């Protein structure tokens, strides 16, 4: 189910001010690293270099060579996409990662027990594990603000209108119109999030194309995650099959066996005895029954039916 609401990110309007990053941290009370050396200069305006348990949204910076003499920045929005086909939800065994009534993906920290399965399942590497409280974290789409009639904190803070919020179908229509406007100057412009992962709760207008804005081209749930989702059913079938086989073997084995004194070892003759009589070392494996089976012999010798005493 695609979300009924969406955030629209227009990268052509973004100036990389990071107001949205700050607003996200501020509203969600996410601590920033403040000690000396905690955030070393990395040679780019992009900071931090990746999301963490305490940073749920960041703007990525990439240089694009427009022509021989001109370079510009392409911005990307690195945060939860609120996918319709959300692998984080399918792998979550506690129900912490779930779909809210509006279709967005919410991580209920009170239910999270820190298995990190969602971290491994997300094709965008969005959920992050926080050592602070041993729980996974990610953008919540500001559910608490939405419930009180407010817009998400990131959208509220955007000074240039690069972020918009509303009904998903309206945001998609808006994105398509804007993409058409940009097309003459940006022939690679792409609207991202309409079809990817069966539709996302974040629609992006990407003037230079998805890859240039550091978005995953053709994202999919990891193959391992898809197989893992089928494993409980496979395990169930396997265990039931094994129980069926053992039940059949139990029935087939009833009444078979031997007494605790039946087999003895004659140390002098160096031979195993059955009921005191030396056993035939050339006894066929199959004791009685079909002629074809009697051809099989432990020592490769032909054996005649009835020659061998049963050892049961």
């Amino acid at each position, binding site marked *: 189910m695609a979300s009924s609401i969406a955030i629209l990110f227009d990268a052509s309007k973004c100036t990389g001010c990071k107001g949205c990053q700050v607003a996200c941290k501020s509203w969600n009370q996410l601590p920033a690293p403040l000690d000396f050396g905690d955030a070393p200069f990395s040679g780019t305006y992009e900071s931090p270099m990746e999301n963490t348990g305490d940073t749920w949204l960041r703007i990525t910076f990439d240089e694009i060579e427009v022509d021989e003499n001109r370079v510009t920045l392409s911005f990307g929005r690195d945060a939860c996409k609120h996918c319709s086909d959300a692998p984080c939800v399918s792998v979550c065994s506690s129900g912490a990662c779930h779909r809210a009534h509006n279709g967005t993906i919410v991580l209920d920290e009170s*239910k999270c027990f*820190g298995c990190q399965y969602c971290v491994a399942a997300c094709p965008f590497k969005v959920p992050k594990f926080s050592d602070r409280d041993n729980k996974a974290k990610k953008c919540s789409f500001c559910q608490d603000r939405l419930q009180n009639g407010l817009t998400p904190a990131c959208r509220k803070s955007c000074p240039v209108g690069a972020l918009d919020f509303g009904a998903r179908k309206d945001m998609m229509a808006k994105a398509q119109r804007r993409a058409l406007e940009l097309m003459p100057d940006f022939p690679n412009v792409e609207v991202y999030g309409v079809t990817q992962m069966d539709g996302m709760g974040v629609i992006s207008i990407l003037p230079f194309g998805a890859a240039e804005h550091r978005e995953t081209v053709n994202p999919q749930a990891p193959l391992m995650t898809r197989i*893992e989702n089928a494993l409980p059913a496979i395990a169930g079938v396997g265990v039931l099959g094994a129980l069926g086989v053992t039940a059949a073997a139990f029935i087939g*084995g009833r009444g078979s066996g031997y007494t605790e004194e039946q*087999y003895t*070892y004659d140390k002098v003759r160096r031979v195993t005895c059955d009921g005191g009589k030396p056993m035939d070392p050339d006894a066929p*494996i199959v004791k009685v029954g079909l002629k074809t089976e009697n051809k099989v012999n432990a020592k490769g010798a032909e054996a005649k039916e009835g020659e061998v005493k049963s050892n049961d």
Partner: protein
Amino acid sequence: MTKYIRRHNFWARFVHWAYAVFGIILLITGLTIFVPGLGELLGVEVLQTSSQVHMIVGILFVVVPIIGYIAKPSNLKHILQNLFRRWDKDDVDFMKFFPLYLFNPKKYNMPKQHYIKSGQRASDIVMYLLILVFMVSGVLMLVGTNLLPVWVFAVAKFAHQLAFVLFAVLLVVHIFLGAGIFQPYRRLPRGMFGDGLVSESDALYHWGHWAEEELASGENVVEKPSS
């Protein structure tokens, strides 16, 4: 009086039961995470406790058997020697006929076997490999995504879950045979449950080559009133 052969010494039984007890706890606690919806049904407190027990017992699962191997290093050597011993014709024939024997044991004179039956050798190799996979992947998952690349964690998790499926199936068969539910195997649990002894008759029926060697040497043979 009945002759008995000592099959498993104390430390071999100790390692087996360490794997068995911790393994079953891990299996149950792992199920709460593995089966979708089960954790949600049980509630987050149960899931949190179960996950913590899984981690602690997981560490015990790695460490405690090592204590057993340190206490009696020859056991480990013995296991490895038996697991990787060359298969002879009896071993191959045993494997060939075991599926038929399983459903109609009265009809078959199974070929004599060495200390570990060829079928069990094959199953044990898979079991030990799965235990190794559990250990390595479990440790990697314990380290977590903050210290490891996410793909390493994802592969470890996948391996852990896949091993779980195979292990669950093998465990059903292992319990069926080892616990003596299968009629011809009904007296075998004593080798692991009790004093580690098996009767002369049991030994000759199940592990003919090994029993003959032991009975000929008499080294590990004891005589006791029959049980």
